[in-house]
């Protein structure tokens, strides 16, 4: 007896529940910071739900604070979200049997958490009697993730409106990005990219529209690409789970 779409949907939701712990602080922080930049509750929560990309949203809002041109914000958003191309490549085969409206809708939900919880179950179900309904698993995970994220955005925007300036909400993106760096710096090439990007962007502080940031990131990427991606000693000694989640996602 194959699993029904309803059961698939609920299983997808259940798989997403543990990610609440990761979504909540990040989503609330993103909302709180965004509302202090745009000064409008509906715009802040709307942006969070429509972009559905927390890091890109925070970087874009930092750039908005510096009055950077729109093109810079769009470029930053594109580069930060490039990993979704990878997710799309991996997940596309599981949407192959679906109509265009389904593909268009499901693609919107292709975020870190939803990809992470569904790629393995979808792969396991491919070729089994459950295969035709497996997109409902992804849908359940995706809908739950959107609900969490948008809810985080509402709570964040409400908080951001009442938190006094002495709490330095503009430091929130920095903490989020330090957290992202702490999970991403694993191999030699990661470190090379980070060091080069940091040095160049600091050297170029004061350029208009935060242009130093873009030049620094570009130099970092190039330096990282030409550095051998050898895993450093300490990374090898860590538990095996490290290399497993390395393959999964880098967020």
């Amino acid at each position, binding site marked *: 007896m194959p699993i029904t779409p309803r059961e698939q949907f609920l299983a997808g939701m259940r798989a997403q529940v543990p990610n609440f712990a990761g979504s909540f602080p990040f989503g609330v922080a993103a909302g709180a910071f965004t509302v202090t930049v745009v000064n409008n509750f509906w715009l802040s929560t709307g942006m969070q739900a429509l972009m559905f990309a927390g890091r890109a949203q925070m970087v874009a809002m930092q750039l908005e604070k510096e009055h950077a041109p729109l093109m810079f914000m769009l470029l930053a958003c594109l580069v930060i979200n490039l990993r979704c191309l990878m997710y799309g490549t991996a997940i*596309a085969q599981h949407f192959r049997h679906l109509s265009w409206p389904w593909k268009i809708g499901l693609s919107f939900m292709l975020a870190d958490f939803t990809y992470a919880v569904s790629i393995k179950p979808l792969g396991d179900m491919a070729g089994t009697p459950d295969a035709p309904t497996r997109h409902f698993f992804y849908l359940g995970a995706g809908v739950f993730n959107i609900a969490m994220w948008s809810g985080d955005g509402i709570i964040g925007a409400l908080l951001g409106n009442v938190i006094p300036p002495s709490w330095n909400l503009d*430091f929130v993106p920095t903490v989020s990005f330090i957290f992202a760096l702490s999970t991403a710096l694993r191999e030699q090439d990661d470190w090379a990219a980070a060091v080069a990007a940091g040095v160049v962007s600091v050297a170029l502080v004061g350029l208009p529209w935060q242009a130093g940031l873009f030049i620094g990131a570009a130099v*970092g990427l190039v330096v990282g690409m030409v550095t051998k991606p050898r895993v450093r000693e300490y990374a090898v000694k860590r538990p095996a789970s490290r290399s497993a989640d390395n393959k999964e996602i880098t967020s």
Partner: protein
Amino acid sequence: MSDLQRLWLTALALAGVAYFTRFSMVALLGKVTLPVWSQRMFKLTVPAVFMAIVLPGVITLNQGIALNPVDNHRIAAALVAAVLAWRTRNMLVTMVVSMGVLWALGWLVG
């Protein structure tokens, strides 16, 4: 155009770019494959982009480099955040404690 209208259009444009990265490979299924090196490049965008954002943000104050931790409390708060992120892997703890450190330093040192 008011600032609010401009920001709504900005949000929609940003959402469009984000959606493009999600939808394009699903739409192009089978017709285009990503080159082998691209996966490494995507991985490297995280250290490159976020270090380029974080470092200048932490060590500058009012447009100038400020390396004295007594004046620039962000240095201490960022170091606390880095250690907590690395040791605890817990976003909530990292966020609450490092924001608390920044607030406390501002209150104590002024």
